[in-house]
């Protein structure tokens, strides 16, 4: 194999630097930086999760027991910001960092130093964001959407805005790096249409990121100047309009939610074929579907604004465009099922999470479709029905896919097998409790419980209590996840083979486990039958 030849006598120079500081703070290595991203995102997942626990604890029963309403709002806001920008997005970037070069036969990311900068901005950005909780003015409490004029009432707007600027810069640089890597660093013979679906999904996601993160930066910059410099963008008295902010925000915000799901689609499209031992059904359709979803994501933003009083024509346009997204997404779901059909399936932990993903994400998609129907959304909007919708797509969608990916590639990263038993424990606990947590929220929404409230009428008590119990247990289940990872990294005795999974195909499985510090310093020779999609002809 090609990598072996190029690396044998280079490992002394090219092994990981032994100095801890140099290795982790000054790295230019995609694997180390990927690891940093993954650790960071796990940490953030736990921080964001603790905030969610505060929310669920306060909502456990009617009456105010634990926190002041203002603090509750800070929790809701921070929970979302930390989960979205701190947990989910960096996790995907970490996975991309680790796997994309391995999957396309590249020696590293195209711009390794910038890669390290993209990562290191994040801890600082979050320090800035989280520090507001301890400042006299208090943290942001206007929801993660930060609608003015409410968000401008906070005294720490500047901290939040600059934190978001930093995150934006990090994401944009990360995305540029990924695009340049995919377009410029593929080994000879790795044609675009032979790339793994995960790589495709990231290529398209990176494009979305570069297109919309600057728009978010623009939106929050306008908040900043409205707050501190007397501009009137969002002030009707000065000829502006608070709704303008919402348009700009959601022009970013909607593609943003697809930024959090397209890489997930990619991951699932790797995992299901591996454990079905059958090539992915409709490879080109899969790629095309991702591209269509990305395209459509730019013209549906106002479906978050059906109740702001848009002109009739606008409501109708955004409703139709939104509904259209169900079609390419459906294609993906059907293709996953067809991949399983006629396969030879086994159900290791990654596969379990992938199956959980397909079912539960689809449920979240269905509620999304219901939200798209404007008259019905007049009722659903800003209720727990929406909260249920987006946690199905985000937790059992994005987060489950990240868990699937972790189990799937962990042996490749560490060279050791995780404990299949505890992995399965993690899965079954998660999948049961997450439904206990979020399914009742549909009923709450339909029964009329608004979101972002710290207290509620007793009519909502039962479902809230169920949801909270599910929440605590789902949260606790994540401790198993942590345990499995720590065990695998530090204690597991069971060595992983290079291929790891019987049905695994693709370049990443041709390098040793653990993957050496440097791989593919010289481009590998690609054999089509090594690839998952070496022989697409449709």
């Amino acid at each position: 194999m090609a990598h072996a030849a190029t690396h044998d006598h280079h490992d002394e120079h090219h092994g990981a630097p032994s100095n801890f500081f140099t290795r982790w703070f000054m790295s230019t290595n995609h694997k180390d930086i990927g690891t940093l991203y993954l650790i960071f995102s796990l940490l953030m997942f736990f921080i964001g999760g603790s905030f969610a626990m505060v929310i669920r604890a306060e909502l456990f029963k009617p009456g105010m027991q634990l926190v002041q309403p203002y603090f509750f709002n800070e929790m809701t806001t921070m929970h979302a910001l930390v989960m979205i920008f701190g947990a989910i997005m960096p996790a995907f970037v970490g996975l991309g960092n680790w796997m994309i070069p391995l999957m396309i036969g590249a020696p590293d990311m195209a711009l390794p130093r910038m890669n390290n900068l993209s990562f290191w901005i994040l801890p600082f950005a979050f320090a800035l964001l989280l520090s507001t909780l301890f400042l006299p003015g208090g943290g942001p409490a206007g929801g993660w959407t930060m609608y003015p004029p409410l968000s401008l009432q906070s005294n720490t707007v500047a901290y939040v805005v600059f934190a978001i600027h930093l995150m934006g810069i990090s994401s944009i640089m990360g995305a540029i790096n990924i695009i340049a890597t995919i377009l410029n660093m593929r080994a000879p013979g790795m044609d675009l249409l032979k790339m793994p679906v995960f790589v495709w999904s990231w290529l398209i996601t990176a494009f979305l990121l570069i297109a919309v993160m600057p728009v978010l930066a623009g939106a929050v910059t306008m908040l900043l100047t409205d707050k501190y410099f007397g501009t009137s963008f969002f002030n009707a008295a000065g000829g502006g309009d608070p709704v303008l902010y919402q348009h700009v925000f959601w022009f970013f915000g909607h593609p943003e939610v697809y930024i959090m799901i397209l890489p997930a689609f990619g991951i699932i499209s790797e995992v299901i074929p591996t454990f079905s031992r059958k090539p992915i059904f409709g490879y080109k359709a899969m790629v095309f579907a991702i591209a269509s979803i990305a395209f459509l994501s730019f013209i549906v933003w106002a479906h978050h604004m059906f109740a702001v009083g848009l002109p009739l024509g606008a409501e109708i346009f955004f409703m139709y465009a939104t509904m259209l997204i169900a079609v390419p997404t459906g294609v993906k779901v059907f293709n996953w099922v067809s991949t399983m059909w006629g396969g030879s399936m086994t159900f290791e932990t990654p596969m379990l999470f992938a199956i959980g993903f397909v079912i539960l994400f689809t449920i979240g998609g269905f509620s999304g479709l219901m939200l798209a129907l404007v008259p019905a959304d007049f009722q659903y909007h800003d209720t727990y029905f929406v909260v249920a919708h987006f946690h199905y797509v985000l937790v059992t969608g994005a987060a489950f896919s990240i868990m699937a990916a972790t189990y799937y590639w962990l042996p490749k990263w560490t060279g050791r097998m995780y404990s299949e038993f505890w992995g399965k424990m993690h899965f079954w606990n998660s999948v049961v409790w997450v439904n206990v947590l979020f399914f009742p929220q549909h009923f709450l929404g339909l029964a009329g419980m608004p979101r972002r409230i710290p207290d509620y009428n007793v009519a909502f008590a039962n479902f809230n209590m169920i949801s909270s119990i599910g929440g605590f247990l789902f949260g606790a289940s994540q401790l198993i996840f942590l345990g499995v990872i720590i065990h695998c990294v530090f204690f597991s005795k069971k060595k992983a083979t290079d291929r790891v999974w019987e049905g695994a195909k693709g370049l990443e499985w041709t390098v040793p486990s653990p993957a050496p510090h440097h791989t593919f310093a010289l481009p590998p020779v690609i054999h089509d039958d090594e690839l998952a999609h070496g022989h697409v002809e449709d």
Partner: protein
Amino acid sequence: MTRGVTEWSPEPYFLNNVALGVCTAIGLLVFGAMFIAMFRFRKSRGAVAEKWSHNTMLEVVWTTVPVLILIVLAWMSTGGLTSFANTTDSQMTVKVTGYQWKWRYDYVDYQGKAIDGVGFMSKLDEQSNDTRQLRSGLDPNAVKVGDENTYLLNVDKPLVVPVDTKIRFVITAGDVIHSWWVPALGWKMDAIPGIVNAAWTNIKVPGTYRGQCAELCGQDHGFMPIVVKAVSKAEFAQWLAQQQAASKAPPATPATPASPTPAPASTTAAPATAQVATAAKAPGKQG
């Protein structure tokens, strides 16, 4: 979801049911196929993987069938939406203004006649407000009107409207964005400072209908309920006359505030931070 009590409110209700049905059906099909696959094609049962990876026929079917389903749904919702958008021919106008954290109602006109001086603030009732204080030790279950628990859903002064009347609401806000929502009326509409939104209702059944502010508007967002009392036309006429008489006597109710004015004092001790209203838009220091 409630079916509601107005001419229009069944629209979202039926739409919800139809969409739910459609999704359940598709769900059963997809998940059913998946479970069959998981059962039949498992390695432990000796399944051997096949090699095929597409089927044009199938792919065409599962792109076009969803499209057809969506067309039906889109057609239904467009109808509902269009009828909602038509606020003309109303027999009454009520102006609703959201404040941190209470609502103001001004009666603008009724049966073609302008109404002068009828308007009032409506905020969380005393009992709920005491109960909802942090660790108040009071029991939310004890907050009742008759048999109905009204914890956080009752106000000091409800909006009184007649039934069988097409009422146009003009909705705005004085400080930040709020959203006026009574589930039984079938819709919510954002109340945006400096902007007026319109909506309408025609209540068919007399009764008391409760709702809440549905847009995060600061710390007491959860504590600004809405109560609509729908009464017969005769009762309403009487009520209105009373209000008009009352408004003549005292030195008039506060004039309708024009656009972003400072927020009224908050209902509880707010952190200083939450009290800067939009009006305090004086340029910050710029060094």
